[in-house]
């Protein structure tokens, strides 16, 4: 749908170039903003957020329960003084966590089950898992 709007905008702008270049640029800009804005709003509407803290090379909470079939936003704050890497083969995710910085990772939609993650630089202590349950059992 947004593509159609964009194509229409392009066609409209093409016509108007002949008459006025300024008007076409304004029109194109409006439709681009409209398309970007609508996709951003739809993405924001579907997010479920979870906060995780990394402190003393441990994840708090080490277990998070999320509902199946939903895209989830994990906000991980590294409170340690050294860099860590959030790593998960099950979730297919890998992200640097810089000291005193918040990092964002999106996971899912996932089917029911357990998905393990760990800190690559401290794999013996920094461990956690995402438990995906059917229904609305998220913590």
């Amino acid at each position, binding site marked *: 749908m947004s593509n159609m709007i964009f194509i229409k905008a392009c066609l409209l702008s093409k016509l108007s170039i002949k008459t006025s270049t300024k008007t076409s640029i304004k029109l194109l800009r409006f439709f681009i903003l409209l398309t970007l804005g609508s996709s951003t709003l739809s993405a924001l509407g579907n997010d479920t957020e979870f906060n995780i803290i990394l402190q003393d090379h441990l994840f708090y909470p080490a277990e998070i329960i999320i509902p199946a079939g939903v895209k989830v936003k994990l906000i991980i704050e590294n409170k340690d*003084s050294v*860099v860590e890497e959030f790593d998960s*083969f099950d979730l*297919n995710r890998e992200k*640097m966590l810089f*000291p005193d910085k918040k990092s*964002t*990772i*999106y996971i899912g939609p996932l089917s029911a089950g357990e998905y393990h993650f760990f800190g690559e630089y*401290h794999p013996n202590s920094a461990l956690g898992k995402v438990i995906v349950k059917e229904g609305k059992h998220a913590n």
Partner: protein
Amino acid sequence: MVFLLAHSWPSIYRLRYSIPLGLSITIGSVILINILPLLSELFDGAGLEVSIAILLLLACSCLIIGSSYELNAKAHKTLWRTLLLFGVCIFGCIKSTNFAIYLIGYIHQNGSGYSLLLGLIIAIGICISFAVLLYFSLTWLTSRHYNKLFTILWSLFIVGQFCFVVPLLAQVDLINDANIVWDSSIWVKDSSEYGHILNAMMGYEATPSSTYLIFYFISIVCCYSNFLLSQAFSSTAKNNISGEEFS
């Protein structure tokens, strides 16, 4: 790098190229290490992924275009050499930054000096052994005129590295990779040794998404057809030159 060394591009490892290349990688890595924390906060936390994706795209494009000119006329020599050097430099910067951050993180652990040294020696040993085996396998392929097989392996390697952008951009919700097509972790797990080797050599994923596969196949077709076109172009150019000489 072993791929480049094994084929007809060992000239980039000459001292006049390797010293500036090494220096550029070192300087680039130092800059990257310092700006990565700042980049990570841009674009609502997607800055790191976007930056690495752009760098990977740039590196892989340079390597593909650079290596496709290997058979062409002398006029293109400077161009492909520059592109190859640029590609290797960016690629080296990304990898060495990753390694340096890992090393810095490990050094901060108390009492890890001995295990770090031991780990480094073993890791370097494994890397060198693997590189030597790969080098001899690839030179054997080229000496037996299995150039097409070499080109396929080289294409798979570049595409595998390039497709790393899919999970990177998916984790910051810029693309969707939720639809898993198959699960081959029963045979080769991502976390296993074979999984790591296959991932590095051809971008193996035990649970690839449809986005990843589409991205992979489009990239491999583009990459391989580019090599085939350049080979066809070079053979036409050679025929024209020999025809002119004959007449």
